[in-house]
């Protein structure tokens, strides 16, 4: 039976509430899960994503940290090494740059370096990319930087269903997961299916979702830009151009199969993202598509 206390009267759920409910359920399900970050407890979260959690779970499990990213990220990673399952919140991923050594060198690489002896079951989450007029230092998209590194799983939800399913999967994953949210999506409501509201609903990593079928051009995108693509698709449909919109959901691993199948169908590809173009997610998508078209076992197109 689905139960989601935040389901709006319209039956829709905002991304914020989906994230909140997912964390609440996972905290309840597994005592080893805890949340730490700046303002996550008494402030209810800088963007209210953790609203109500401190009241329910208390100081031991919802931990306000000082403004010391490198230190608290290292502490979170250490706690994960010692058997807990932390959710480490970055107020925005721009601040994760201060702690990036702990994310990459202490978390991502450790299972490999230890030949599987030492796992790091941790989730790093927070808003990523551009917001509304917050300035250059607060607007960087980190999908490409984190997506570059083996040992990490990197996901970028768009809808409330994405947020709920991917976050649950991330918390249950025994590996370090970088969970890239978007501030401007937090307040956006979405329909949610009965299935997606169930307690064990998870979305597998490495599977993109075709949000809109089309035949003329493939739009590959992630996060907030799925909305942009759907809006563009509606405009283009009036001119007789049918766009296929592929919501990546997962940056690493990347669902190359779904992208390739779509491009084989439409013969046209546009990548749409919030990050900078050089060495970015779109660049990687294009490279993979081109390699796929040119390998020895693929016919030239």
């Amino acid at each position, binding site marked *: 039976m689905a139960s989601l206390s935040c389901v709006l009267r319209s039956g829709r759920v905002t991304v914020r509430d989906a994230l909140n409910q997912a964390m609440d359920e996972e905290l309840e399900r597994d005592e080893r899960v*805890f949340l730490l970050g700046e303002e996550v407890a008494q402030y209810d979260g800088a963007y209210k994503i953790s609203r109500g959690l401190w009241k329910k779970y208390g100081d*031991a499990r919802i*931990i306000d*940290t*000082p403004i*010391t990213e*490198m*230190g*608290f*990220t*290292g*502490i*979170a*990673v*250490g*706690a*994960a*090494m*010692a*058997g*807990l399952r932390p959710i480490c919140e970055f107020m925005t991923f721009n601040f994760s740059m201060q702690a990036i*050594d*702990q994310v990459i*060198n*202490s978390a991502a690489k450790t*299972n*490999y*370096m*230890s*030949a*599987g*002896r*030492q*796992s*790091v*079951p941790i989730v790093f989450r927070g808003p990523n990319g551009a917001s509304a007029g917050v300035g250059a230092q607060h607007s960087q998209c980190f999908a490409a930087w984190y997506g570059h590194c*083996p*040992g990490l*799983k990197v996901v970028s939800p768009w809808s409330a269903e994405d947020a709920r399913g991917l976050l649950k999967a991330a918390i249950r994953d*025994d*590996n370090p997961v970088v969970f890239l949210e978007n501030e401007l999506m937090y307040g956006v409501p979405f329909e949610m299916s009965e299935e997606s509201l169930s307690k064990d609903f998870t979305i597998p990593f490495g599977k993109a979702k075709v949000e809109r079928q089309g035949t003329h051009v493939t739009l590959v995108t992630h996060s907030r830009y799925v909305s942009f693509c759907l809006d563009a698709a509606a405009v283009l449909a009036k001119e007789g151009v049918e766009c296929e919109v592929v919501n990546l959901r997962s940056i690493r*691993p990347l669902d190359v199969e779904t992208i390739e199948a779509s491009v084989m169908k439409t013969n046209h590809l546009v990548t749409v993202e919030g990050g900078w173009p050089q060495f970015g997610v779109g660049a990687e998508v294009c490279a*993979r598509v081109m*390699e*796929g078209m040119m*390998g*020895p*076992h693929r016919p030239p197109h």
Partner: protein
Amino acid sequence: PCLQGARAVVSSRAFADFTPKASFEIKKCDVHRLEEGPPGQAELTREQGLHYYRTMQTIRRMELKADQLYKQKIIRGFCHLYDGQEACAMGIEAAINPTDHVITAYRAHGYTYTRGVPVKQILAELTGRKGGIAKGKGGSMHMYAPNFYGGNGIVGAQVPLGAGIALACKYLGNNQVCVTLYGDGAANQGQIFEAYNMAALWKLPCIFICENNKYGMGTSVERSSASTDYYRRGDYIPGLRVDGMDVLSVREATKFAADHCRAGKGPILMELETYRYHGHSMSDPGVSYRTREEIQEVRSKSDPISMLKDRMLSNKMAAMEEFKEMDSEIRKEIEEAALFATSDPEPPLDALCDHIFHNDLPLEVRGTTPWSKLKSSS
């Protein structure tokens, strides 16, 4: 009792001939924000003494063997040797339980051993073979064991990790402590002060230990630190400065520190004054920034293994022959381990991509070209 040639028949001596237990004066610790420090006396039983000697000598010989293998180019990459500092690793282990936790930086071979990894698996990891503790994929700086979190290559990064392990101990309520080690070179890292703050704020059972061997790579403490009183650098965290060349001092101080943490008083900081005979790593002869005379002086006056042996001999706690026999056994153990480490095969190429993830289904990994795929199992 009769002596057969150069070897004593030790078993022919009655145990009553040896002092079973003796008390030794140990150097008083400098204290910071503490009413009193560890006791000025330490008790040592014969069994403990023999065990500490054996352990320290094994570490010593293992490190010297690593030096030899490195010079033969059988070990490559980074290799940071611990000889001279054995009393730190042994003293700490003697004061804590196997269920307590230890994390250190890259000069980690000694701790890898005291935390239970056999010499054979340490040397084979250094030579990059599949019989190594990390299957040949970690190398010198990335060896792990239960409750031992490496081996960490990024200077200072292990300190917040250690505070996090302590947080887990508190969270789980298991009365365990985490010993979090770093060097004098790391002691100025900002993230260490961030860890101090959170450990003190949340009363984490974390024993921060600075192994001060006087040089961060080639930079002496006077040239790197505005304050070289590393035991005071925790400010609001109580601190102890300890003679790190005396295994009993280290043990007593660590016991004191562990009791402090287990009593729920929060973190504590220890500075162990110690010394490394080798340079920073195998690519450093170690004499451009310090004198040979200094190294020789420490060797002759403060060697941790000699000090323990002399104490035991002068108190008739053991016979010279026993030490010689242990040395001979250790030599044999190291030789056998080295033989294994040089003859064991390297990990197979199809294991290259394993362990990218934990507890996952096997996945395909791109090889050198887009159509050459490698397999990764967890």
